[in-house]
């Protein structure tokens, strides 16, 4: 594919630029700096692969249309496969608005361009196919990694990341999820927590599995506990009864004694008053109190009477008290008036002086009355202000009117000068006439354009016809039909298409069926092999395992279970036996008891007997005098008797065992021995049984560890036994399945043979059918679709040839018609003079059009000048109008000013002021008048205040004088000899107040005297009543006096106390009796012995204690068992843990899927990379090496790409490879250029060659290498090593253009200059 022509509508400095006839080979664009070469490169790249995203950084590279025109442009592309394609692109989303059309202007699908680009996207094109020196040099500014990535992109595919980096990235992400021997990654963590969770589940499960046994034990314990509680209640009832009796034993005894005491007390009167002694004492005390009160009242009455008689009253002064108080209230007013009098007089004098001074300022003849007569109202004031404003406004408007008139006079002068200059300019302009009218001229221009376009398109049409023919020939050649008329043969072939395809499908179907049948046979054989292998394996397993039978294992298990149960009871029995033996051994003889008193007494008596015998034998004593009258005979017999008595006493006191206790102990010992023997017998029996069971179970000892181990071993053997049985069954099943599989294989094989035969038959039919259609090389049925597709494309190619031919003819006819039309125009004929060839005709037409355009331009200038003159005249007229208006306004302003001055004078006259006063002076005079009036008002106010003060002082002293005279009191005088009215008032008021106090005291004493008299009478009555009460009490007790009364009262109190004690005891006893009849209860005290009851109570208590201990133990056990059972039934722990396990598994599954996707991506990438390296990569690198070696003149051997570490190495002839960074800039660029050219050639092997565009990429090359690079370009453009490519080379160096021209003499050279491109 190559660019045949392009048109830039608007792009940077280019606007409406057309470039035609670009050859398919090398083209050089030469231009100076900033001539627009880079813009042109950018335009071509953008048109081919699209505009960048408006928000991307690349968008800044796209210049806006600086010289107008619609942004964008179009390319004419020529493709071998598609013919001519017109591509138009405008800025917009997704690469811009793309329009594709064919040579006839019919629209094409936009995907066609993508097909032509064949996987080359925008970035790849910019990096590899169309690049400038800048892009080549950007490698230097990139980081090392960036360089390598870009290079790697050129190796593995432009625009791709390094696969090694991608693999490393994938590994990192994988490892973050899971690593086999790590603990931190998420999956490993999850696994650890899952295992922990499963451990917990196992523990809780085991606990839950024991629920049944636990619940049974709990029920048994509950039953035992209930029985025990019943027994406890019975014992407790009896104990309470006995204890109750013992507790009230003393009370019963007291109760009995109280009865006896009551009978012994003397009789007392029944009417004896309750609480007698206290009542008597209270009566006596009341009487004495009344007597004391009586005496006190009498004394108080006499004292009051004395005080009343001592008081004296003053009547007239008392009556004058209210009036004196009223006068005292006026004292403060009198005092203020007296003080204010001098100040007021001073102020009045100052106000009078100020008024006189202000009147003087106004001038002679002015006083307050005249001022008041002057009109100083609001309306007069406003009128005065208005007159003043009017006067000022009239003055200002008069000044403005004068200024306006001056300015307009100046404008009129200027305008007249402009008119004169415009008239002179118009006279100088010519007035030419056009050769053709507007419509004629348009027709001529259109015909010319059509003719030129038609001429331009003609070669393309001819090429299109040629290409269509070639295409048809190629298509026909691939079909290899043996026919004279290819078109008819194609039609026949296509008519039979459906039939042939049906046949091909049949062939394909039969091949598929045959393939399936073969696969089925293979699968069945594989299945049979698997089954046989499994069977062999099972048989091998069976041979290797010959364990005991299931019955033997069951017997051993049963024995083991019995042994386990027996072990527990044997252990219990042995412990019991040991306990009994211990108790027997620990049993002691009853302790001996000795009597020290008897021993000592016995000893003394024996000593006495010995003394008597010694005295009798040795000293011959007959008797021993104990007292004067009592003599103890000391004979032999008495000595012996005393000695014997002493010995007996000693014998009685010697230590010895108690009889009944010893007997009980012996009995208990006998019982224990008997129980021990029974127990030993039982232990022996159990031991025998255990030995037998040990033999059955095959164990040596019966300790729990051994039993546990044997049980585990048995369980394992049972499992093995179960597996054996299962493997036997499985083997039988496998045997049967193998038989079935064999039969199935035979059946499938016969079917496969049949299918193969069918395939052969149908293939022959296909061959015959195609031969009938005159196809020389009959295609395989599998490729029938593509064969007919080729046939169809060949038929389409034939149609395309005919169409192209017809279009070419039409185009030529149109051109002839256009030429005739042009010759028909008269001015053209005039220009030609004689019938010339087509170029002369075209020149003549252009001359005519040019003369018309010039005439139009001159006429247009003349019209513009006339319009300017008219504009100036209009302006003059307008200004003159405004001048007249300004003169009129000035006259009006003058009139207004005079009227205002007249009104002002009249107004001042009306106020009595001079006419010549200005407004400011008038305002000041009015202010002065206001001040005078205010001062006058202040003088009048002060005189009124003085009069009021004098009136206030008189209101006090006149009534006071009258009152004092009436009371005959003297009038006091001060130091100046004036009467002190205030002092007189104060002394009179004080005397009146004192008289009022005396009168009030006399009234109070009178009232107290009356009250005291009443109290005296009441005290006398109370005394009488108290005396009567005392006498009544003595009478009730039938006592003569108070002493006898008290004695009788003491006897009565003792008897009542005893009775109350007895009742209380009886009540207690009744409570203690409870439900028992009270009489029986009382009788039981006398019937039973106290000590016997106590011993019975102790026995009951001991029994109760035992029961309680047992009950407590059982309750604890039941409580803990209940808690465990409830825990097992009520808890959701296991469910919760299992739900957690499910959640954890789900989390792990999700993580595992993430990991798997990464692992799979890694594996795919790795395999693809290996394949790529093996099959594709060397081709690009080899090619790049060759090109690099060629450009460098063999200085370097080539390029080597190490794909594992994503690096590029340059190979010298000798020594180790070096990295590109170590090379000079020129050599680096040569390496990169070689890599690109290799990629371009490699790409063209599989796809349409794309235009290659370069912008001065050789400037850093030395002349020799640049020349060699130029030759390489030529080779690329001529397709010496592959398919030819169009190469557009932009340069600003003429020598570079010469060098390229030298390498390719026929190359086209275009000149780029300031927004235009033209062919040299």
């Amino acid at each position, binding site marked *: 594919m190559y660019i045949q022509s392009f048109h830039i509508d608007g792009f940077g400095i280019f606007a409406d630029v057309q470039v035609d006839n670009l050859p398919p080979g090398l083209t050089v664009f030469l231009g100076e700096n900033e001539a627009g070469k880079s813009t042109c490169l950018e335009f071509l790249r953008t048109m081919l692969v699209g505009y960048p995203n408006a928000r991307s950084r690349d968008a800044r590279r796209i210049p806006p249309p600086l010289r107008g025109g619609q942004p964008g442009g179009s390319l004419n592309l020529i493709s071998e496969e598609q013919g001519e394609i017109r591509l138009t692109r405008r800025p917009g989303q997704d690469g811009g608005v793309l329009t594709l059309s064919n040579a006839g202007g019919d629209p094409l699908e936009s995907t066609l361009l993508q097909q032509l680009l064949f996987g080359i996207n925008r*970035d790849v094109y910019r990096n590899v196919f169309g690049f400038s020196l800048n892009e080549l040099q950007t490698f230097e500014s990139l980081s090392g990694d960036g360089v390598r990535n870009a290079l790697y992109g050129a190796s593995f*595919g432009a625009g791709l990341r390094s696969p090694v980096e991608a693999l490393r990235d994938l590994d990192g992400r994988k490892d973050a999820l899971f690593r086999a021997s790590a603990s931190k990654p998420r999956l490993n963590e999850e696994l650890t927590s899952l295992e922990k969770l499963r451990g917990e589940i196992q523990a809780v499960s085991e606990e839950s599995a024991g629920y049944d046994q636990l619940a049974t034990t709990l029920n048994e314990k509950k039953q035992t506990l209930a029985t025990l509680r019943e027994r406890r209640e019975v014992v407790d009832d009896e104990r309470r009864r006995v204890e109750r009796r013992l507790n009230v034993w003393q009370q019963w005894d007291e109760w009995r004694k109280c009865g006896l005491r009551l009978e012994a007390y003397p009789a007392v009167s029944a009417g004896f008053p309750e609480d007698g002694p206290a009542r008597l004492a209270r009566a006596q005390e009341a009487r004495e109190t009344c007597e004391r009160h009586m005496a006190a009242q009498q004394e108080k009455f006499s004292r009051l009477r004395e005080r009343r008689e001592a008081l004296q009253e003053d009547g007239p002064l008392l009556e004058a008290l209210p009036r004196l108080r009223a006068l005292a209230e006026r004292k403060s007013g009198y005092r203020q008036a007296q003080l204010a009098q001098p100040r007021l007089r001073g102020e009045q004098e100052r106000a009078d002086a100020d008024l006189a001074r202000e009147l003087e300022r106004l001038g002679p003849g002015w006083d307050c009355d005249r001022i008041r007569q002057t009109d100083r109202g609001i309306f007069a004031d406003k009128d005065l202000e208005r007159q003043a404003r009017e006067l000022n406004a009239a003055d200002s408007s008069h000044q403005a009117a004068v200024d306006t008139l001056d300015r307009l006079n100046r404008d009129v002068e200027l305008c007249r000068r402009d008119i004169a200059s415009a008239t002179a300019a118009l006279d100088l302009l010519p007035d030419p006439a056009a050769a053709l009218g507007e419509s004629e001229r348009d027709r001529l221009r259109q015909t010319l354009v059509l003719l030129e376009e038609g001429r331009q398109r003609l070669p393309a049409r001819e090429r299109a016809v040629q290409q269509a023919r070639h295409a048809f020939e190629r298509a026909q050649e691939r079909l290899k039909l043996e026919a004279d008329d290819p078109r008819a043969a194609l039609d026949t072939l296509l008519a039979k298409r459906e039939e042939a395809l049906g046949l091909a499908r049949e062939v394909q179907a039969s091949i598929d069926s045959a393939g399936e049948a073969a696969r089925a046979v293979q699968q069945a054989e594989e299945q049979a092999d698997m089954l046989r292998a499994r069977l062999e394996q099972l048989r091998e397993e069976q041979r290797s395992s010959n364990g005991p039978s299931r019955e033997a294992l069951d017997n051993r298990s049963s024995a083991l279970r019995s042994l386990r149960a027996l072990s527990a009871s044997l252990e219990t029995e042995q412990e019991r036996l040991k306990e009994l033996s211990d108790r027997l051994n620990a049993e002691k003889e009853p302790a001996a008891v000795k009597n020290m008193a008897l021993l000592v007494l016995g000893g003394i008596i024996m000593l006495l007997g010995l003394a008597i015998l010694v005295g009798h034998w040795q000293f011959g004593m007959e008797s021993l005098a104990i007292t004067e009258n009592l003599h103890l005979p000391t004979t032999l017999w008495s000595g012996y008797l005393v000695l014997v008595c002493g010995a007996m006493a000693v014998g009685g006191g010697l230590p010895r065992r108690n009889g009944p206790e010893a007997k009980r102990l012996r009995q208990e010992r006998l019982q224990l021995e008997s129980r021990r023997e029974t127990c030993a017998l039982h232990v022996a029996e159990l031991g025998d049984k255990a030995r037998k069971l040990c033999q059955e179970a095959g164990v040596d000892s019966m300790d729990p560890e051994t039993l546990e181990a044997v049980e585990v071993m048995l369980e394992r053997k049972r499992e093995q036994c179960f597996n054996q049985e299962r493997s036997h069954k499985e083997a039988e099943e496998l045997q049967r399945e193998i038989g079935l599989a064999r039969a199935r294989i035979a059946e499938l094989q016969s079917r496969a043979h049949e299918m193969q035969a069918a395939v052969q038959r149908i293939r022959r039919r296909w061959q015959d059918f195609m031969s009938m259609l005159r196809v020389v090389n009959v295609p395989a049925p599998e490729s029938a679709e593509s064969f007919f597709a080729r046939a169809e494309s060949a038929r389409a190619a034939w149609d395309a040839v005919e169409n192209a031919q017809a279009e070419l003819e039409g185009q030529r006819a149109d051109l002839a018609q256009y030429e005739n039309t042009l010759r028909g125009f008269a001015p053209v004929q005039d220009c030609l003079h004689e019938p010339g060839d087509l170029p002369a005709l075209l020149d003549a037409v252009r001359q005519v059009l040019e003369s018309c355009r010039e005439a139009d331009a001159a006429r247009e200038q003349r019209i513009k000048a006339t319009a300017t003159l008219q504009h100036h005249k209009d302006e003059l007229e307008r200004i003159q109008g405004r001048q007249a208006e300004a003169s009129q306004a000035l006259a009006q302003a003058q009139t207004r000013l005079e009227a205002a001055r007249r009104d002002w004078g009249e107004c001042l006259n009306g106020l009595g002021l001079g006419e010549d006063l200005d407004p400011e002076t008038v305002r000041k005079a009015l202010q002065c008048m206001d001040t005078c009036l205010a001062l006058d008002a202040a003088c009048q106010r002060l005189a009124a205040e003085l009069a009021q003060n004098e009136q206030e002082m008189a209101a006090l002293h006149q009534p006071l004088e009258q009152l004092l005279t009436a009371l005959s009191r003297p009038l006091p005088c001060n130091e100046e000899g004036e009467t002190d009215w205030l002092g007189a008032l104060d002394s009179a008021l004080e005397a009146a107040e004192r008289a009022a106090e005396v009168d009030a005291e006399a009234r109070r004493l009178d009232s107290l005297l009356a009250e005291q008299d009443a109290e005296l009478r009441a005290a006398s009555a109370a005394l009488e009543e108290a005396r009567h009460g005392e006498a009544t009490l003595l009478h009730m007790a039938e006592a003569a006096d108070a002493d006898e009364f008290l004695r009788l009262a003491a006897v009565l109190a003792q008897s009542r106390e005893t009775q109350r004690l007895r009742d209380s005891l009886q009540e207690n006893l009744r409570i203690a009796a409870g439900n028992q009849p009270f009489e029986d209860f009382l009788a039981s005290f006398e019937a039973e012995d106290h000590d016997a009851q106590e011993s019975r109570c102790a026995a009951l208590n001991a029994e109760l204690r035992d029961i309680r201990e047992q009950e407590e133990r059982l309750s604890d056990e039941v409580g803990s068992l209940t808690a465990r059972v409830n825990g097992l039934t*009520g808890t959701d722990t296991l*469910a919760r843990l299992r739900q957690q396990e499910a959640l954890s598994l789900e989390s792990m599954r999700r993580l595992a899927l993430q990991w798997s996707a990464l692992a799979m991506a890694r594996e795919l990438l790795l395999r693809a990379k290996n394949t790529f390296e093996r099959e594709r990569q060397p081709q690009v690198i080899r090619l790049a090496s060759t090109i690099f070696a060629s450009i460098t003149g063999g200085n370097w051997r080539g390029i080597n790409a190490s794909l594992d570490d994503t690096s590029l190495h340059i190979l010298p002839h000798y020594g180790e490879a070096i990295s590109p960074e170590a090379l000079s800039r020129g050599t680096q660029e040569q390496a990169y250029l070689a890599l690109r050219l290799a990629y371009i050639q490699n790409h063209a092997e599989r796809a349409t060659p794309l235009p290659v565009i370069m912008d001065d990429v050789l400037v850093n090359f030395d002349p020799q290498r640049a020349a060699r690079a130029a030759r390489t370009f030529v080779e690329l453009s001529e397709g010496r090593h592959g398919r030819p490519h169009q190469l557009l080379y932009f340069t600003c160096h003429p020598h570079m253009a010469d060098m390229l021209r030298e390498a390719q003499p026929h190359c086209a050279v275009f000149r780029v200059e300031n927004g235009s491109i033209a062919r040299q």
Partner: protein
Amino acid sequence: MDIVRYIHAADLHLDTPFLGLAREAAQSGHLSRIMQDATFTALERLFRFCEEKRPDFLVLAGDIYNQENYSAKAQLALRDGCRRLDALGIRVFMAHGNHDPLSSRLTAIHWPENVTVFGPDVESRLVEKDGHPLALVHGISHAGSRESRNLAQLFRRDDTRDVFQLGVLHCTVEGEAKADRYAPCSLDDLRRSRLDAWALGHIHQHRQWEEESFIAYSGNAQGLHINETGPRGCLLVTACPREGGWRCESEFLRLGPVEWQKLSLSLDAVDSLDGLEDALTRLLEEKARTLESGCEALIARVTLTGRTPLDEQLRKAEVRADLQERLLHLAANSPRIWLKDLLVETRPLLDEAEYRRREDLLGETMRLIEEMRRDPEQFAELGATALAPLFGHARMRKALAPPDPEESRRLLDEAQRLCIDMLEVR
């Protein structure tokens, strides 16, 4: 002969956890509570239905609880419910299955008089109504957790009694796809017994065959994972006498409070995440509106399909997580909706064929992936190599099962996206 009415339930799996839920979803307080009690709620509803509908008897066809869960709570809850029915005079017939074999019964629990637990051999019990024989119920329990005998062949009609005869069995009927095939039998085996009806358990999906015998699986009472979708419950069967036999009609009664749903959403017309969120919200709310009143929670898996520019974004786990988080507000509606997961099966707008045409490494990779899609054996070999470190790991193997073919297909799609992501410089 009187009409016979009975309720048939099976596979309650009391106190069994839910599977396949993300931890975040399951730890949401409300959902976690509902899930924890879901199986017990279903049981409670069953007994409430019995109290409302007053059937002649209740049949439980095995797997009422899971032996391996050691849940005494489950058996006690069952016993308490049976006591309630005992007070109403409703008999209960219980057969044990592979998950709750006879050996797993707790002897410490005493069952009320109305409960009949079938033993390891076929037993027949007569049900009476108002003193007259009403029906004869035959049944058998699994003695152990791996019953491999054909138990259906042990049933025989009792010709001496002219009443409705029902068989209760926990079994796998031939043709049912279920991994653990215990007590296998065929429909012919069942019909040969000449019983009027069969109440079966073990298959967790409601199914019934109505020919000469009425054979029915009631399905399980509560779906426990995403493959048990839709409403779950029991059957109220009414058997009416007809010429020479009985005509049975069944009514489905919903029990499970939690419902699983698989939904699909095409994104052909959706080009933004906001639009997707709206579409998802509409879909789920629409679904929630159509749910029955007994559904307390809907746990949904939504599969996104279609060709959309969002494909690349949706392939990112964080985008999906964010989307799911933003949809949490749906849980505020009633019945509450929980989005279990989002499966992305969308395709990108750009043509995969274009990628495959590329001559670079990416094109090579895409061609390799296409080849894997075409050749399952080669793909299996690649999968085995790539995934061996994880699924062959000694400890991991006990927790993780290798991906099934469907998951493998999705993994390949995901791997393709990763390859494009990793290789293309954007």
